[in-house]
C-alpha cells in the first residue's frame, strides 16, 4: 500500500550501508476505525424512504343545490367511524321513516374489508364515510386506505348527522 520503492536510482551499487531502514508502512488502524464509525453513523441516520402520501380529492363546492345528485338508497353504503376505534356500517340511507340495521365491524382484514368486498358486485355503489367527532384521524386514514385496498370507485367523506349519532347511541353496539 503506502510503500515507497526504496531501491530506485539505477540499482548500481546497493552496497552502501544505510543507518537503519525505517518502515514506511503507516498504521492504518485508527483511520479504519474512523472510517467505520462514520460508515455506521451515516448508515443509521440515512432515511431512504420518504413519507408516502395518500391523495384525497374533495368535490368542488356545488354552485347551487340542483347540481348535487341524490344517491339511490340501494346503492348507498354508509360507514360510521365511532369513538374508541369502533366502526359501524349500514346499507341504504337513513331517513325519518326507514331505520337501517346498524352493524359493528372492525378495521382489520376480516372486518370492514370483507363487507366492502362482498358489495363489489354493485357497480354503482357509493360509500359514504362519516367520521364521528370522537373518532381520530388514524381511523379516517385507515378507512380511506380500505377504499384504496378494495378499489372503491365512488366514496365520499361526509359530515356525520345527528340521526347517525343517535343511531349509534340507540344501537348500543
Amino acid at each position, binding site marked *: 500500500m503506502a510503500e515507497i520503492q526504496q531501491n530506485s536510482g539505477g540499482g548500481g551499487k546497493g552496497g552502501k550501508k544505510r543507518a537503519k531502514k525505517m518502515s514506511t508502512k503507516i498504521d492504518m488502524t485508527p483511520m479504519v476505525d474512523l472510517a467505520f464509525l462514520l460508515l455506521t453513523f*451515516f448508515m443509521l441516520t440515512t432515511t431512504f424512504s420518504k413519507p*408516502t402520501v395518500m391523495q384525497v*380529492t374533495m368535490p368542488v363546492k356545488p354552485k347551487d343545490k340542483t347540481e348535487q345528485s341524490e344517491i339511490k338508497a340501494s346503492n348507498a353504503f354508509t360507514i360510521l367511524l365511532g369513538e374508541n376505534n369502533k366502526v359501524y356500517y349500514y346499507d341504504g340511507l337513513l331517513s325519518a321513516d326507514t331505520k337501517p340495521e346498524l352493524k359493528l365491524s372492525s378495521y382489520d382484514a376480516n372486518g370492514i374489508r370483507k363487507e366492502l368486498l362482498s358489495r363489489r358486485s354493485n357497480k354503482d355503489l357509493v360509500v359514504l364515510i362519516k367520521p364521528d367527532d370522537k373518532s381520530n384521524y388514524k381511523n379516517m386514514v385507515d378507512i380511506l386506505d380500505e377504499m*384504496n385496498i378494495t378499489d372503491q370507485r365512488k366514496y365520499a367523506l361526509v359530515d356525520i348527522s345527528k340521526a347517525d349519532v343517535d343511531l349509534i347511541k340507540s344501537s348500543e353496539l
Partner: protein
Amino acid sequence: MTPMVDLAFLLVTFFMLTTKFAPEEAVVVETPSSTSEIRLPDAHVVTVAIDKDKRIFFGIGDDEIKDEVLKQVGAKYGISFTPKQVQAFRGAGASFGTPIEKLPALLNLDPEKRKEVTQDGIPADSTNNQLMEWVVTARSLSQKQFNAAPYIAIKGDGQADVPTVKKVIKLMQEKNINRFNLITDLETKPVAGK
C-alpha cells in the same frame, strides 16, 4: 485489509453524499400508516401539520419563497420583520405554529432557545384565519415563482381529532383547494379479495 478499507470508504462517501438530514420539526407528529405508494414530492410542498393537541402548524418546503411569504403575510397583519428575523425564519426548521403576532418574538430567540418554546398553534377559525392566509399566500407565490401550484400536504397525528382535520379541509375547500395529500407511513399492501 486494503480492499476492505477501500470498500468502507466508498460506502462512507456514498452515505455522506446521499444523506439528507431531516429538517427539524417544531412538533412531533406520528403519522398513521397507509398502503399508498405515492411518494411525497421533493419540492413545492406546503405542509399543514396537526398534532394531537389540536394545534396547527404550517411549513413551506421551498426556501426561495419563504422570505416573501413571511413579508406578505406580515404586511397583511401590519407586522414588519427585520432582515435578521427573516433570516431566522428561513433557517427555522420545517414548520412553525405561532400566531403571527408572536412570530417576531419567537424569531428573536436564538435557535437553541426556540426549540424549548411551546408553540400554541396557528389560529384557524372564522374570525382569525391566519392559517389560510399563509396557505393562500404560499400558493400564489409558488404559482408565480415556479409556475406550479404547491402540493398541499396534511400531516396529521394518528391521535389528532377529526373535527380539527375536517375544519382544515373545509377551510381549504372554501379557498377552492380540493386536492390534498395526507402524509402517511408506508405499510405493505394486503392482497384484496382473499
